[in-house]
């Protein structure tokens, strides 16, 4: 009885170390990855705390307040109605990040399920899944989204359906990688050994196969995230997704469609959301570089 408890807590400690402690230590070591991670963290914090600390400025002001340059009162200046740009920025990331994270999560989930099914089952299941994956991969993603955006049945105002749709279009790439990992692991010696010791398939998946695939999965999560940001902001800019005004993408769309993009003074107002999105994407990519090293010991930089 006690022995079992000891073994269990040992296992938990091992899992925490593998999945949390060691990665964290490694993030610290890789400079670019650390910077990326910190920036992402800051963005998330800003998105969460923003609405509380600096609520959206909704008061329209007279003409002399329009497109003011940065000042103490308005660190990022004002918009075309004299409203504080910074408030729009800190409030505008919520939907973008939510869709991005959800899409990333769904993509990984879908890809893992499909990839493992294809790898483990093989045969006709494998061929069918891979065929569907190939078809999805060859269709250009953005035109498809554009066309779908025009259909009434697809509500793009809600983060969740949009994320699901983005995930449906992004899972093929990762599932291929997961599938080939599963295939190669099926052959590998330690899985044979585990099977011989009759450890059960679920145990094999989670304690042997998963840790080795974590690097793929983590990096692909980040890629799905950046892809989702690209797609949703693109759709917003073209005017196909009517989110509310504080959304970074909507800010850009309005500047462009109202023509205020071409005013010299609007630069601070337009540049802010562009910079935010650019920072988000760049930080994500930098972070993903360090992830490659974290879960794959062979890629870790030496000493």
């Amino acid at each position, binding site marked *: 009885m006690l022995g079992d408890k000891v073994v269990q807590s040992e296992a938990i400690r091992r899992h925490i170390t593998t999945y949390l402690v060691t990665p964290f230590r490694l993030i610290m070591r890789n400079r670019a990855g650390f910077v990326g991670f910190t920036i992402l963290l800051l963005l998330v914090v800003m998105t969460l705390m923003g609405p509380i600390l600096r609520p959206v400025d909704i008061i329209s002001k007279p003409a002399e307040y329009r497109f003011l340059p940065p000042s103490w009162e308005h660190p990022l200046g004002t918009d075309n109605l004299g409203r504080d740009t910074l408030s729009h920025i800190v409030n505008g990331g919520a939907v973008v990040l939510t869709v991005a994270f959800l899409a990333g999560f769904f993509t990984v989930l879908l890809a893992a399920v499909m990839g493992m099914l294809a790898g483990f089952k093989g045969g006709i299941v494998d061929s069918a899944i891979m065929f569907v994956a190939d078809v999805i991969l060859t269709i250009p993603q953005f035109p498809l989204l554009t066309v779908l955006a025009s259909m009434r049945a697809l509500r793009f105002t809600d983060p969740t359906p949009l994320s699901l749709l983005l995930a449906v279009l992004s899972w093929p790439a990762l599932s291929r990688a997961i599938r080939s990992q599963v295939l190669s692991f099926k052959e590998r010696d330690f899985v044979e050994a585990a099977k011989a010791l009759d450890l059960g398939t679920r145990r094999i998946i989670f304690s042997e196969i998963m840790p080795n695939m974590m690097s793929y999965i983590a990096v692909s999560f980040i890629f799905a995230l950046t892809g989702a940001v690209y797609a949703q902001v*693109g759709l917003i800019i*073209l005017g196909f997704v009517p989110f509310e005004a504080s959304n970074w993408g909507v800010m850009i769309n309005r500047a462009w469609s109202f023509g205020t993009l071409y005013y010299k003074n609007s630069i601070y107002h337009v540049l802010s959301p562009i910079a935010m999105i650019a920072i988000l994407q*760049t930080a994500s990519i930098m972070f993903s570089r360090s992830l490659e090293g974290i879960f794959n010991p062979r890629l870790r930089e030496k000493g």
Partner: protein
Amino acid sequence: MATSFRGGKLARLFSGRIFKKVIKTIATIFIVISLTFLIIHLMPGNPIQIYIEFLMTNMYMDYDSAKALAASLFAIDLDAPIHIQYVEWLRGLMRGDLGVSIWATGTPVSKMIAAFLPWTLFSVSISLFTSFSVGILLGMLIAYKRGSVLDNVLTAFASVTSAIPNYLIGYLLILFLAVQWDLVPIFAMRGAMSPGITPGFNLPFIADIFFHVAMPYLTYVITTVGSWMLIMKSSTISTLGEDYVTAARARGLPDRRITFSYVGRNAILPLFTSLAISLGFIFGGSTLIETIFVYRGIGFLLWQSVANRDYTVMQGIFLIITIAVITSNLLADLLYSRIDPRIR
């Protein structure tokens, strides 16, 4: 293991990879066409239904007239059973009949596409050509000069430009080159060519089209050259470590020969698989880039048709873009097999 094949070129053509690839390509195109049919014609809330409702509510048509009009615009017979509709639809496609535009009444979709498509092909191909060539040359250069200042600067540049969405870079170019610094006459550069200039192989025309494509071209190149550079850099670095490179040096071959025929030829191979993906991406991105710069290519037309609820044109463009991407994937694949003797 590749074995030598007895039999003429024709026989070799029909067995083996190339044939299978072509079949797969045709199958994929077929599926995409069918899927489009499914979505457009059968899904609840599909464009045909919406259009009929629109005609009935806004144009006060009765159902039958609305249906008849819709049928003629979409080039299908709405009364016939589904499978007949499907076959007719396929036949129409074979003939090149993509229906008639709803918004630009009377204009066949195929004619509209024919007017806009060449500009996209033009801008995409010159951009791809430039970013691919510059990317591989720079990539090889920084692989050889690993760790130098040039390496760090270019790698940082490449990482940033490939991370930022291409349309944002387009906006940044407008914001700075045009709005802030007044370097570029952005409004005059709209459109694919200036009115009044006769198309043809004459200098004014050629200068004009390059003038108009400059901004989209710059955007495409800046956003794609980075990833070519990075892929080529890592490919070159791993090729440099190969035994056959050391062996080539041992045989006293000149550096230039080694760089191009031993390192370059092998390092470039993985890039061709990325070429296919890159094509799909550029075609997809054309919707945004062309719209931002008001460049009259197929992406711009797509945006316009979605904004105008012009379903027939939308459907036509989607099909054309998809078929174009699928076909270029096949071409890239064939190109790869010509270059790598291990695949032949």
